[in-house]
């Protein structure tokens, strides 16, 4: 007998249950198809502008920095200011995502923009998030042809664009949106929920930022 059958057999014996019991199968099918929502904190259930305010406040509490922009066309200028304020070279790397590619980068002649995944030599990465979660100041990033995951982890500084209209009150709203985009039960290879910059407290329980991932997380909230 294979290990698989042995393990499943032992589980069924211990539970005193059968793998073909119609009631059990129906319970599982129902749960997987209906994906019932459990307890959702009231904290994020706010009108849209207050929800974005909560997102900004929560992101700040976990040591992300946040800038609010009126429109998408302000993104290149905001990136340039961020680099200048931190004495960083005017160089970024980003994915080919249309939401980033279509921006007026030509307005910032001094800024060098390269595209594609990171090999670890980039100081600053720019990504576009699919959603924000107000409840905890979390940004949601999905991998895909134009959205390399390495940009979320290898650069020292990670700049993430969040469209204010995509800021949800809770994770459950984000799951619903993922199902709408990718299909029920289907996920892109990597979905990252990022809440603040990388940190460690492994040495004498002292909290330090910038462990293995980005030392700083800068969020540009647009709209």
């Amino acid at each position, binding site marked *: 007998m294979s*290990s698989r059958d042995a393990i*499943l057999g*032992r*589980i069924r014996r*211990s*539970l005193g*249950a059968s*793998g073909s019991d119609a009631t*059990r*199968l129906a*319970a*599982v099918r129902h749960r*997987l198809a209906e*994906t*019932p929502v*459990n*307890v*959702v*904190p*009231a*904290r994020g259930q706010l009108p849209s502008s207050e929800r974005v305010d909560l997102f900004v406040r929560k992101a700040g509490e*976990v040591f992300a920095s946040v800038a609010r922009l009126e429109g998408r066309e302000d993104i290149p200028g905001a990136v340039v200011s961020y680099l200048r304020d931190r004495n960083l070279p005017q160089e970024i790397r980003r*994915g080919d995502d249309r939401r980033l590619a279509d921006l007026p980068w030509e307005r910032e002649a001094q800024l060098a923009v390269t595209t*594609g*995944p990171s090999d*670890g030599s980039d100081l600053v990465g720019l990504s576009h998030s699919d959603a924000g979660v107000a409840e*905890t100041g979390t940004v949601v990033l999905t991998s*895909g042809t134009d959205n*390399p*995951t*390495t940009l979320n*982890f290898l650069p020292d500084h990670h700049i993430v664009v969040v469209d204010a209209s995509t800021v949800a009150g809770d*994770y*459950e709203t984000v*799951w619903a949106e993922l199902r709408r985009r990718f299909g029920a039960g*289907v*996920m*892109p*290879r990597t*979905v*990252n*929920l990022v*809440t*603040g*910059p*990388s*940190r*460690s*407290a*492994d*040495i*004498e*329980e*002292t909290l*330090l930022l*910038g*462990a*293995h*991932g*980005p030392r700083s997380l800068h969020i540009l909230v647009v709209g």
Partner: protein
Amino acid sequence: MSGGLTSQSFPKNARAALANPPLLKAIAHIEETLVGGRRRATEALPEFKALRDAGRDIKAHALDHLDLYLEAFERKVVEAGGFVHWAADAADANRIILDICRKAGAQRVTKGKSMITEEVGLNAFLQENGIAPVETDLGEYIIQLRGETPSHIIAPAVHVNKEQVAADFRRAHADLDPKRNLEEPTSLLAEARGVLRERFLSADVGITGANFLVAETGSTVIVTNEGNGDLTQILPKTHIVLASIEKVVPTLEDVATIMRLLARSATGQEMSVYTTFSTGPRRTGDPDGPEAFHVVLLDNGRSAMLGSEFEDMLRCIRCGACINHCPVYRSIGGHAYGSVYPGPMGSVLTPSLQGLEKSAHLANASTLCGRCESVCPMRIPLPKMLRHWREKEFERHLTPKKARFGLAAWRFLAARPRLYGLATRLGAWGLARLAGRDGSLRQAPLAGSWTRWRDLPAPEGGTFRTEWAKRGRK
């Protein structure tokens, strides 16, 4: 690791820990950081109690249908282009992982933090077979350099101070400038970041654990703060996930509920920095991510816990809250337990995994004060299960002779109320005579190990039963 388990010598280990001031100083931080953090985070979320109930119900439902959810999970992993392997025990898991590494031609292997790989002793096994895995979580990296095991499930190097880390780094990173300053945690972190960055970029295989397996989507989920787990799994060509079977939950909604409990209970964060869902290998056109994705599902004794008095333990999400709040752990640290998993959750789990014969002391390494159960996000009745193990220890004659004799004598008397009354009256009278003027005993018959460390207050007045009888008459 499985080779270094010393649960049998718990009393000796505990005495050694109590005489180790640097260890005691290191674990003293837990009160402010982890215990205080949890209190603040849970007080800030009015729904925390309701979430605990929901979390318990999700896991109970998943365990009741565990076979079916595992099958559903497997189907989704395969649909996404991944492989699922089933491991009955530690040896199976190690062999499967070695085989994947060999087929991938792996020279260099990185690892994210994973207690399950500690449970199966994966590092030692791979090393014996010519593959040297590198731990990448800062705490795990430190203890790997020291040749130690984790002393805490979420803070593996909690017993180490920064001076020790500096000495370890000087020894291990001999190619760096010997005059460099390593006084501050920041410089230690920066050095580890630099050294490990090279390892991440050159790894052939990355191995992680999983906090959740999602049946709905076939995703494995890791929750970390450092980002090392992510670098471990997105850079190498092959990503292997080792997870035990009880990690499966039905849906993304269920993950969200337990996520809200996990970090708050563990570190006092509302959310850990990185919660990452990995589903299959990279897709056509993806510019990065692993080309092969393997999930190894480990049983190792868990299927036998289902339907037993220890089933509730399978709800555990490894947050460490019971450990942080345990007065015994806080007095001796994690290594004294001599098991992979320390503290209350470890004392319940270890006998199930490695047999009661090798770990009978652990159920007694508790005052049964109940703090563990009161903070457990999954409402696991830990004290009740510790009592179950004590009963089994007695049934199997693993309890020391003296204790068995004492219990037998007590049983004899308790079944004979008149004799019991006489014996307790005599005992109380005798002890009161033996006591000094301050009403306490520096030595007492049959209680030498108690009075060696503290005085025993002598009984005052009559026994409970005589007092009860007196008051009843009034």
